[in-house]
């Protein structure tokens, strides 16, 4: 019989790191317990997994690591409900459950030979980080053109992966633009909302794909900007969030029209979304 | 029946329907309300269905008879805008409680009061006749053609249990009254039904409620049909703390029903909507009636009968009974 998709594998929480100043977002680093588990967990940027905090329950989170980072996977999770609270409180060394990888992923094949502009807001940066790290990997970097990352948060304290961002600042292989909503002490980089900054710094839409993730309001105002810059809907991708339970396209709650975000998504192009009802 | 001033299904009934329609028309054309919530003929025999009239051309859908069983007050908190609601005695009591609990704005509400001689309980009939194919109501008689047999009932025989014990057939709060009023029946013993249950042994009662709870499928039709169950998040849906699982264990079902009934203690208006809504025919009303009786005997309070009386559990008195205390 094939594998029971409801049974999680057990992974060890080796690091529980608070990412943001408001202490609401932690990054969990999980370690595979066996080579076999890792072999079976082949994933691509954009996929998610159901993370179990035994005693609290299970919830879906985007995988923040890239498949090019072996041995571990990471999730950056905001403290909002039962499961995320339990995870935040969890001691390092605790065993957690992971089901996945689930869903589709960013079309890394299709992106080959193209320039990429990655636009992220707030903590929706997780799978975008996965994608950026994937492309920056020496095995893959040559496959892609220019990579521009536009990443914004309300204030500097809310930006995720600060060390990595610092490293990207000086990395010639990636063009990073960080921005915050309002001026803050000690912040010398850009200030302004993502749509505005995008308009200022986005590269030419020629031969370029855009991937946008963030709060609904950010997406709503960024899309017209991208359109204005000449990105056709087929070349704008996003990743959606929905309440999910099974992650297998069965339990019936994450659908948009006939598509299940957990199985047919979470990654959709704007062209695909235009075909679906606006119920998300 | 002595106390019936008008006969069921008779001429008065049709004049009530005319008056309801005229009132609704007036309200809508004057722009006094956005919607009139009433009843229309349902798709099944002996079943009316709630009807939301927004334009005068739909007014003739409105009906009034013994099949108008839903408590429309349940829709008062769900429907936006200014609304007129056709209210029976129990419905009006529910509206009073909702107003007392600040769930409704009085100015947005127009109560079309209609005295009610009780509604038909279809399940009672179908238990004998099988599924009802056709039925008619005339002159206090309900004639039923069923899949198993045909039968004629007097209206009293098939009246819903909650209507058998009704003490407020006339609306207690209304902006207009339609039709005659009904003399409140003298009941030999108020809460006789509860007393009967109380007289059983604890074991018998336990067995009874366990059987009832074993039928419950936790569809929450009872809760949702209840005009006073308006919590944005019901305790059964709360996941932090998680009071209940989604299981259908009879102990958990009793937890749900008891929790709900306790939340309705001193508020329940005994409309019986919960029991009638139950697709599994669980005797939910038995629990609510017990609470009503206790509130009535211990605190001399009946919920929703007047805007001026405070809900029983919002009040206290220094000499409230405390027979429940341990003896030590």
């Amino acid at each position, binding site marked *: 019989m094939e594998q029971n998709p*409801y049974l999680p594998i057990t992974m060890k929480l080796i690091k529980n790191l608070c990412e943001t100043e408001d202490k609401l977002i932690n990054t969990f680093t999980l370690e595979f317990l066996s080579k076999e588990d890792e072999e079976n967990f082949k994933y691509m940027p954009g996929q998610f997994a159901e993370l179990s905090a035994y005693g609290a329950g299970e919830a879906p989170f985007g995988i923040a690591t890239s498949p090019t980072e072996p041995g571990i996977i990471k999730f950056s999770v905001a403290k909002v409900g039962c499961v995320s609270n339990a995870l935040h409180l969890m001691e390092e060394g605790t065993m957690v459950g992971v089901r996945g990888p689930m869903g589709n992923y960013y079309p890394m094949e299709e992106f080959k030979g193209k320039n990429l502009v990655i636009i992220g807001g707030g903590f929706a940066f997780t799978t975008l980080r996965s994608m950026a790290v994937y492309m920056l990997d020496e095995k893959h970097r040559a496959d892609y053109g220019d990579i521009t990352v536009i990443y914004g948060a309300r204030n500097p304290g809310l930006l995720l992966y600060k060390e990595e961002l610092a490293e990207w600042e000086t990395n010639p292989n990636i063009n990073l633009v960080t921005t915050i909503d309002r001026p803050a002490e000690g912040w010398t980089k850009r200030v302004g909302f993502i749509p505005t900054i995008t308009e200022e710094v986005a590269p030419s839409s020629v031969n370029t794909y855009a991937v946008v993730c963030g709060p609904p309001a950010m997406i709503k105002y960024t899309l017209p900007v991208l359109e204005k810059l000449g990105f056709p809907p087929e070349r704008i991708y996003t990743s959606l969030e929905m309440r999910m339970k099974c992650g297998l396209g069965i339990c019936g709650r994450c659908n948009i029209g006939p598509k299940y975000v957990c199985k047919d998504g979470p990654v959709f192009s704007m062209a695909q979304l235009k075909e679906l009802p606006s119920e998300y | 029946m002595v106390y019936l001033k008008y006969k069921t299904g008779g001429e008065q009934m049709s004049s009530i329907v005319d008056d309801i329609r005229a009132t609704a028309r007036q309200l809508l054309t004057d722009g006094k309300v956005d919607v009139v919530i009433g009843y229309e003929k349902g798709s099944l025999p002996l079943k009316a269905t709630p009807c939301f009239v927004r334009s005068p051309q739909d007014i003739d859908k409105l009906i009034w008879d013994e099949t108008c069983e839903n408590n429309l007050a349940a829709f008062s908190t769900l429907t936006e805008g200014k609304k007129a609601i056709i209210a029976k005695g129990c419905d009006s009591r529910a509206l009073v409680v909702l107003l007392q609990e600040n769930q409704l704005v009085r100015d947005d509400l127009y109560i079309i009061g209609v005295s009610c001689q009780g509604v038909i309980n279809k399940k009672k009939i179908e238990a004998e006749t099988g599924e009802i194919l056709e039925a008619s109501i005339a002159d206090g008689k309900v004639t039923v053609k069923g899949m198993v047999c045909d039968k004629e009932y007097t209206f009293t025989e098939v009246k819903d249990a909650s209507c058998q014990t009704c003490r407020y057939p006339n609306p207690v709060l209304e902006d207009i009254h339609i039709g005659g009023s009904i003399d409140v029946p003298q009941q030999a013993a108020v809460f006789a039904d509860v007393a009967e249950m109380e007289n059983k042994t604890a074991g018998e009662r336990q067995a009874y409620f366990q059987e009832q709870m074993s039928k419950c499928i936790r569809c929450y039709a009872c809760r949702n049909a209840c005009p006073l169950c308006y919590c944005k998040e019901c305790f059964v849906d709360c996941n932090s703390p998680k009071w209940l699982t989604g299981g259908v264990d009879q102990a958990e079902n009793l937890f749900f029903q008891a929790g709900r009934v306790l939340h309705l203690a001193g508020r329940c208006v005994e409309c019986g909507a919960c029991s009638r809504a139950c697709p599994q025919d669980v005797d939910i009303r038995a629990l609510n009636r017990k609470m009503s009786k206790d509130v009535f005997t211990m605190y001399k309070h009946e919920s929703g009968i007047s805007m001026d009386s405070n809900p029983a559990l919002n009040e206290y008195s220094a000499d409230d009974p405390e027979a429940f205390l341990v003896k030590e």
Partner: protein
Amino acid sequence: MKITKEKFGQSFDALAADYQIIAPVSDAGGVNYKAVKSFSEVKQDYLNSKLPPKSFLFPQHEKLLSYKKEGKDVTIKNELKVGKSILFGVRPCDAKAMLLLDKVFKNDEYTDPYYYERRDNSVIIGLACNKISPTCFCSSMSISPASSEGSDIFLIDLGDSYQVEVITEKGKALMAGLEELVELSAEEQALVDTIKSAQTASKVDVSTITAKLDKMFDSPFWDTLHEKCLSCNACSFACPTCHCFDISEEVHKNEGSRVRTWDACMAPLFTLHGSGHNPRDKKKARWRQRMMHKFNYFVHNNGDIACVGCGRCIKSCPVNLDIRQVIDGVNNVELVVD
């Protein structure tokens, strides 16, 4: 071919030794499917069960796994345990519904083992409807009161005997022990023919509904349809094809289990995000989802309408929101051509 009920009952009782037999019985809650040990417990004359037999393949409350925490460690146990069972007396609508559920619990990527273990280990003995309820409309859903689709063995009640049709290999294997089949009399054959040609009196037209709904997501039709709905789960729980579920955890000290329980798209919390956002926060959206899922999305994904016309939702709805009228309503909508 037929078998007397007496003979059938003997085989039934014998099978009860090896199989869990689920059959309609009459109890406090009306006629429902329950585990029985003997044919004598089986309710003979019934229209259909109050609740559909889907709960035997997809229980309302089911343990998926259990776990035990010790310090930081955890051990997990798969709770999938299934024995052989026979579902007896399944009506054609419910048998068809199981074929639809089969499509739900297996998609291009995943197979639900909890459902399929039960499904693969159960034999469906269908039973034709001799009497048809006024709320039945299966004839409109390409089923009939005597269609054998979905059954492994199909029976037609002839009074003191059953006409027997063996439909599948599974059914054949089960029937192997039954040798005492005899020919029908001419009279019985006539009765079988009458039952087979029967149609439900109530009908709806679903011939164009899927295509119509393709264009109706933004129709004003949904604006008022939902108004009397109380958002309870009665229709979904009574539906033989509704299959939405919730997964939650039940914890006792350091032990617990992960369970799945029936859920329904009519509940406002069904789609509530952790952030507080809810894509289907309005009743309007939820009713649209119910209709769309059954008559449009399901057809696009699985090639069939997810309604079998059993009429249970009509009987269980506390406010008489009749799905037949909703179907009619959809048919009567005039699409605005732009």
